[in-house]
């Protein structure tokens, strides 16, 4: 399970899939791997292929490491100086 507590919005499965689909062929492949039959069978033209697909395997567990930490050593950063530098034109 990903640390979704950092993203306070509900991802919405449909939105996740659409994002992938919009990405072109590579995205389409991702959606198929995720379980295309469930998600794509309603589409015109291509949907028929997924209605005819064999039954999916059981979903595997997620790889689930918590993801990389955000910037390490943040307490060592002089944030004030960083922001002053950004503000100076």
């Amino acid at each position, binding site marked *: *399970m*990903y640390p*979704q*507590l*950092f*993203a*306070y*919005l509900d*991802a*919405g*499965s*449909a*939105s*996740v*899939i*659409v*994002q*992938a*689909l*919009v*990405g*072109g062929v*590579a*995205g389409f*492949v*991702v*959606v198929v*791997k*995720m*379980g295309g039959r469930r*998600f794509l069978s*309603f*589409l015109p033209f291509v949907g028929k292929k997924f209605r005819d697909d064999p039954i999916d395997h059981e*979903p*595997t567990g*997620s*790889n689930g490491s918590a*993801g*990389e*930490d*955000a*910037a390490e050593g*943040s307490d060592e*950063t002089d*944030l*004030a100086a*960083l*922001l*002053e*530098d*950004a*503000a100076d*034109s």
Partner: protein
Amino acid sequence: MSDTAEDSRAQPDAGSFRDPLSRVYVADGEIYRTLNEQGLADFVATAKAPFFKSAIQAGRLIGTRVADPVPGGIPESAQVLRHDLVPYVSYPYEWSFSMLRDAALLHLDLIRDGLVDGIITKDGSSYNVQWIGSRPVFIDVGSFEPTRDGEPWFGYRQFCRLFLYPLLLQAHRNLPFQDWLRGSVDGITPEACLAALRRRDLARRGVFSHVYVHARLEQRLADSDEVAADKLKQSGFTTELITANVDKLHRLISGLRWKQANSEWSGYSDRQHYTGDDLDQKRTFVVDAAAKQHRRIIVDLGCNDGEFSEAVLPHADYVVAVDSDPLVVDLLYRRLSEKGEERILPLTMNLADPSPGLGWRSIERKPFLGRQPVDLVLALALVHHLSISNNVPLTDVIAMFADLGGDLVVEFPTPEDPKVQKLLRNKRAGLHDGYTRKNFEEALALEFDVADTLQLDGGTRWLYFATARG
């Protein structure tokens, strides 16, 4: 009323509470943001990224410093930041089409630039953007976080609801999105957007994927317990796909246009109904009134082409130019934007039904009346519309101007005025017998002290400069 010490203590901003990592406070008129440990880590990663500095310097991201000192009343937190102020707060349902479009493109530009440095926004809300005059600026600095492999853009759905769908509906169906966004603080759902589009619109760029597939999938997955995001990484989802989506959204939105026939006002700027030197007289009176003292904020109600907003600008820090016709405001915004004007903010709203308090506890988004202190109100060529077209008694019209605060420059067209005659033509005889200059002056004197009066040479227009009482 609270004493000075209380005023200095920070109060939480009613519009900032949904993100546990970051919260906005107001103290002494300044804006502060608290960050917890994770929020601070995310922000440091963002501030170190090259896109951050260039966005700040280009004025696309609100100026941000470490808060020093930290005012009283701000809870213990990992870090407190102070943001530059936006001169006047406004909301997407008060913007014209081109304003919403440019705000959307700004949001996408920042995501695109951020992705190069491994940073993305957590959300995609049009409330992340404010205006410095005609320049959009991204204010939700707490929204940035590092990308994580295999994670989607969590803000995509919100971006659709609060940016893309309103723009699509205005561009393709000529539906005024402002009413819709005002009615629904979270924006337009995929299902609602699809319902408002025609079958032929499915062939338009972006509609099939962002609207049709989105809506149908939502219906289909409504009862599912699956969380699609969990499977993304192992299915090969990469940040490149987010970039591809953002690029396509950018092209799509850049190409959207609002084609609209002339509104009843778009021919107003020739001002033919003013005779002879009347327009010059009017301008001189208005500018002299504005110049009586330096004004921080002037609100120009019924601004139309913005002529008077620009005329009074030398005597103000900022002018908020409001008109009920979104087309007129769009034209004004595009003209100001081309000039790079940063001290006039154009907004659209029905002045007989100004923006109310909205959202959580009805204060998450502030009402127009009383939103911020106003030093001067211009109400030119407006009173007859409110009183006759909207059937508002003159005393109530004046009361609304008083609600805004500040001094007032108001124009009263008499019943003999051709524009008033035109409005009265469709009304039952006798209905507006109370619409007289005598009644108007009495109403005005109830709330204001009249300092100066002028009858324009044409004879049917009277101007008043009145100061706020008490």
